[in-house]
Structures are given as C-alpha cells and as structure tokens.
C-alpha cells in the first residue's frame, strides 16, 4: 500500500473535471465541491455509482443535462453498496476471462449520509467485507437528508434543528441523538485496507486521501464532511470556511487508518471553541451558551481518545 502524496501543489492538480459544470446543485454546494475534487483525484478511468440523494437529483434527473464526463450509474437509496460489488465483480470477471483489456478501473460510490449510514448501511457493510481492489465508498456527509428538505439522519449532530427534530418549547435542544461515526464502523471490518475522514480543508487533503484509497488494494471508505448551505442555514459563500472551522474546533477529526495503522492528520493547537463553528449556522441558532459549553466538553473528552489512538498507532473507540 502506497502512502505517497500524489498531489503536492494545487498548481499541479489535473486541470480537467470529470464531474463538470452545468447542474442544478445549490449555489455554494459543499458536496458538489467534494464530488469535483474526488472525480479529479480518481481520474478518467472511473465508474461512479450514485445512490439517490442530492448528488443524483440535482445532477442527472433531467434529460439531456448529464454533467458526468465518466460513466455514472444511478442506484436506489439502499443499493449503492451492492451495485458497486456488482460492477467491480463484473469488471474482474471480464478481465479474468480475457474479454476485456486488463486495466485499473476505479469504482467509486458517492453516497450521502442517508444512502450510506442509514438506508444503505447493510450494503455498504457487505461491500467492505469483499476484496475488490479499487472499490471506494465515499460518504458525503451533510448531516441530514437535505434533498428531501432537511430531515434528521443518524449522522445529524447533537443539538441540530431539522424538520424531524425541530427545536421548540418542549424540546429546546433539537436533535438529541449523537452523531454516528461511520469511519469507525468501517474500520471495524477486517478486510478493509484504508479508512479515512476528510473535509474540504486543508486543501489537497481530500484528493490525496482519494488517491491513497484507490491504490490501497482493497475496499476502502472515506467519510467526508461537506457543509450544506441549505440545510445548515448558512450563507452559500461560507462552505469552505465552515469546513476549516469544523477541523479547527475539533468537531471533525481528520484521521486515517492504513491497514489498521492509525494516523491523526491534524491536531488543532490550540483547539478553538466550538462556538466559532456553531454560531454561523442557523441550525444551531437556538442553542444557549451552556449547550455550546456542553458540546465543547464532549469534544474535549473525545479528543483524549484520539490522542491516545495517535500515541498507540491503533484505533481506540472514543465512545
């Protein structure tokens, strides 16, 4: 497994987009930035699998308006994991039988938190137990079902208001469930070669992780936090800033696990108070100061485990 840095400088990234302009995604769409960067890093020899979600509906549901310059295939909400195994298996069989030229073809599933962490969870888990090379599962996590109008998913963070968990007089907090850590779940699969978390910041981090994952020699998963201006109730221009703040406040931990070897990619020093990340977001506008302190304390506690993991070089479950 190579852990090389493929993209050292933004000036040297491939200039071509394989997920191109001309689509109905929101202004300032975080997942669209993520998709662009992932497709850039994966290159032209890629097949994208798109379970239902924003990245299907806003891109390809109108006739004659496909923005994909590489093959793309829609699956049902729960079908992303299984469809990817089917594609990878078909390619391998055709190559083994000599009916297709031997070459490296990436199969990348671009599933949202609903399609990977909730509805398509079983398919994803099954996919991670196979040994197909160049099979990459991406969870683009915007922390709710944004396409259908902001409903809570199992990756919605504590305290967030969604249409399923509205903050009001009776329940002043909003969502009281804790965010599911999908990367930890994926790391618990014995055959998985590479698991990482990423977001839009720092630059090139996401692209390099995609490159590493595709060259890891087995099924891999990257859990990407991508801000959604519509569902987070923020200014469309704040997407990248929020990614940076999520990392700097410790709310989003950048790590990778390379064949079980844990590596912490970024340690905020000093860690900013979570208020800086939560305050610009409308979905947290109902939280009081003590609630924010509570979240900050939770993050503080969690980080002790991340630091211990970094010291030991293997994952320690922080919950």
């Amino acid at each position, binding site marked *: 497994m190579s852990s090389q840095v493929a993209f050292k400088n933004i*000036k040297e990234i491939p200039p071509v987009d394989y997920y191109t302009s001309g689509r109905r995604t929101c202004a300032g769409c975080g997942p*669209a930035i993520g998709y662009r*960067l992932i497709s850039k890093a994966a290159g032209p020899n890629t097949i994208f699998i798109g379970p239902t979600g924003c990245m299907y509906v806003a891109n390809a549901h109108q*006739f004659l308006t496909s923005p994909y*310059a*590489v093959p793309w295939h829609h699956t049902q909400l729960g079908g992303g994991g299984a469809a990817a195994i089917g594609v990878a298996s078909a390619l391998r069989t055709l190559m083994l039988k000599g009916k297709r030229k031997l070459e490296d073809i990436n199969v990348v599933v671009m599933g949202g938190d609903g399609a990977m962490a909730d509805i398509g969870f079983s398919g994803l888990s099954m996919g991670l137990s196979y040994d197909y090379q160049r099979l990459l599962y991406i969870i683009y996590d915007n922390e709710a079902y944004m396409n259908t109008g902001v409903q809570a998913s199992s990756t919605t963070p504590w305290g967030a208001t969604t249409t399923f968990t*509205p903050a009001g007089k009776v329940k002043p907090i909003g969502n009281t469930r804790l965010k599911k850590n999908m990367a930890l779940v994926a790391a618990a699969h014995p055959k998985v070669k590479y698991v990482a978390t990423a977001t839009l910041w720092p630059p090139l981090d996401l692209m390099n992780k995609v490159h590493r994952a595709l060259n890891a020699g087995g099924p891999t998963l990257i859990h990407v936090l991508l801000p959604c201006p519509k569902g987070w109730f923020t200014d469309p*221009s704040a997407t990248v800033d929020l990614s940076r703040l999520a990392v700097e406040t410790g709310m989003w931990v950048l790590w990778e696990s390379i064949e079980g070897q844990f590596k912490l990619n970024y340690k905020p020093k000093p860690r900013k108070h979570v208020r800086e990340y939560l305050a610009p977001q*409308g979905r947290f506008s109902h939280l009081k100061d003590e609630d924010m302190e509570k979240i900050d304390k939770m993050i503080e506690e969690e980080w002790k485990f991340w630091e211990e993991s970094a010291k030991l070089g293997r994952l320690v479950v922080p919950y």
Partner: protein
Amino acid sequence: MTVKLVKVTPKVERYPEYEELDWVIAHGLGVDHTADITSFSQTIAQAGSIKGIETYYYMRYDDSPERNYIPMAFYTVLGKPKVPVLLHEEVEPVGELFKVIAVFSSSLLLQKTAQRALLFDGAKKDAILLVNTSITTDDVVRLVKKYNLAQDWFGKVVTISAAKIDSAIAYPMLGALARGWDRIDLDSILTALDVLGKEKKKESVRKGYEAASVKEVHVLAEETEMFKKIKREVELPEFTGEFWTPEVYYAYQKAAAEAQTYPSRIATMPRWEVLAPGLIEFGPQPGKRNLGFTTPWRWQRPIIDMNKCTDCKLCHYYCPDGAIDFAPIKVDYDYCKGCGTCEKVCPVKAIKMVPEIEYLEGLRDEEVLRRFEQREYGF
C-alpha cells in the same frame, strides 16, 4: 460523422380551461425566498376564498424551490365566481395564463425563469408585473423589454421597495399587489391575515399599499428587443431510425440550450419514435462543460482583478460549479451561480462580487443590497 439538421416550428398547445382562470406566478430565489413566497401565495389564496372564489396554491419540485439561489416559481390559481377550479394539475407557461407575475428579486428580470423560459411566457396580455425593487417603473419596463418580453403587453407594472418596510418581504408586496390589482383588494388581504393568525403583519401590508408605485404599460411585441432576437424555429437532428450517437445527443443538447422561449425549448425534446430504441446519456467530453444546462442563474457575479491575482488556483479548486477555468484563471459566466465562495477563499482579495443588475445595467438596487444586511437563517 455529421448530423443532418431539420427545422422544426414549435407548436403551442394551449389550455383554454386554464386561461379562464387567473394565475399568480411568483418568482424568487430558491431557499432564500421560499418562506416569503409561501406566505405571499398562501395569503392570496386565503383572501380569494374569503371573497368566495375557489383558490389553491402550490409549488412544483421541478421549479427548484429547494436549491439555494436557483430561480424558483410558486403558483396561485383563482377561479371565476361560480366557475370552480377543477383542474388540480400542473401548468406549463404557454398561452395566456398568468395575470400577475410577482418577482421577488430584480436580478430575475435579467434571467430566464426556473423553467428556462422568458418571464412573460404564458402571461396574459393585461398582466400585472409586481417587482420588489428600488429602481423605477420605467427602468423595470426597459429591462423586461430587453430580456424577458416578446409579446404584446397592455398591463401594469407595480414596484415596491419591500425590505425597507419589513424583512418579511411578502407582506409589503401583498399591499402593493392590492394597489395594482382589483381582484384582491386590501380589505380581503387584511381579513386573510386575521384568519391566518398574522395580525402583526397588517401594518406592513398597509405600508406596502401606500409605498407602491404603479404605472400603466403599453408595449407592442415589435417594440421589444427580445422579439427581434428569438428564433422562430429550432434545428433538430433528422431521425434516421438508428440508435443514439454522441453527435445526435449533442445536437439535441445544443438545440435545447439555444432555445429562448418555453415552446421552443419543449420542441427540442426528442419525440417518442426517437426515444423508442432506448436512451444513452453521453455527458460532456472531458475538459468540456455540460451544454444542456447553461442558464446563468445568479444575482451577483465574481469579477477577478487580474493585476492582483497570483494564479494560486484556489478559486478553481474550490468553485462548487467548476465554473472557473484552470489555466488561465477565467470565470465561465454561463455556469457561475454567484455563491461567493471564490471571493472568500481568495488569499489576496482579487475577487469581488458585484450585483448582476449593477454590472449589466449600471443600476443600483437597494433591495438587492439589503440582502446582505437582513438575511436571516433558520426556520
């Protein structure tokens, strides 16, 4: 392989049953105006039912109510007295349907609508154009003639600087509507607000009624710039009975992208016998952009100062729409949605966002600028 093109004249299929009714279409920017437009349409429907008219209102998912900054549309239908609204169906902007065209942001006067049609596609001849803007009624008529009108118009234009009165811009706009349209008068709107439990907003409606400017308009189709520009025919690939090829696909895409009015856009859709053998979506060639979806939808645009630019490529890296070329750094305005990400990520502050109406027409619209100050997020 070259594709032989044939000329097709768009056929307009009108709906006489629909044209007897009065339609109010409200255009706004997705997500930002969704709540305002909902209150606007809901109150009109309520006011209509108080007067004994059967009404209903709806939004269509296809008209992008749920995508930030993307043009959206919301419909309210008012029946004639004693003629009930029986057609609970969606309507396409053809024929003479819309009595009121409400525009929540003046940037929409310069663009195509959510359905990639002209603003006046499907409008009645005596339509009332209601715009939330601080620019004058004369300027509004001039802009509409330049960008969005290609038919006779003997109606009214009503302007109101709504955010100046209330940050919930729906209510001053309702007042302005009552000023320009006798079908829904001020009293019935105020009663409707009582019924809806929004008594506090009555004052905003009254102020909007007072502050609105109304002007009668008399425009012939031949006077408009758009009338001279629009093509009467669309060019489509000749049907050979063979399977789809990239050339045929791209020719259809090009025709759809170049269509200016709603009927001609619909005429570019492949007929059933073309689709019968099946369909392959080809997508753009690597390095090219998606031709099929070029509508420039934005209320502000980025301007790059090339003297300051250090060519760091961060704006290209972070552009959500991939609208900035890698080398040389250049914005493709056919695809930019005006989110402002590039301005935020630029390390040397070489990018500045300029409101579209100021850039294209040199007009300063206070209502557009107020968006920065009064924007509120959350439910």
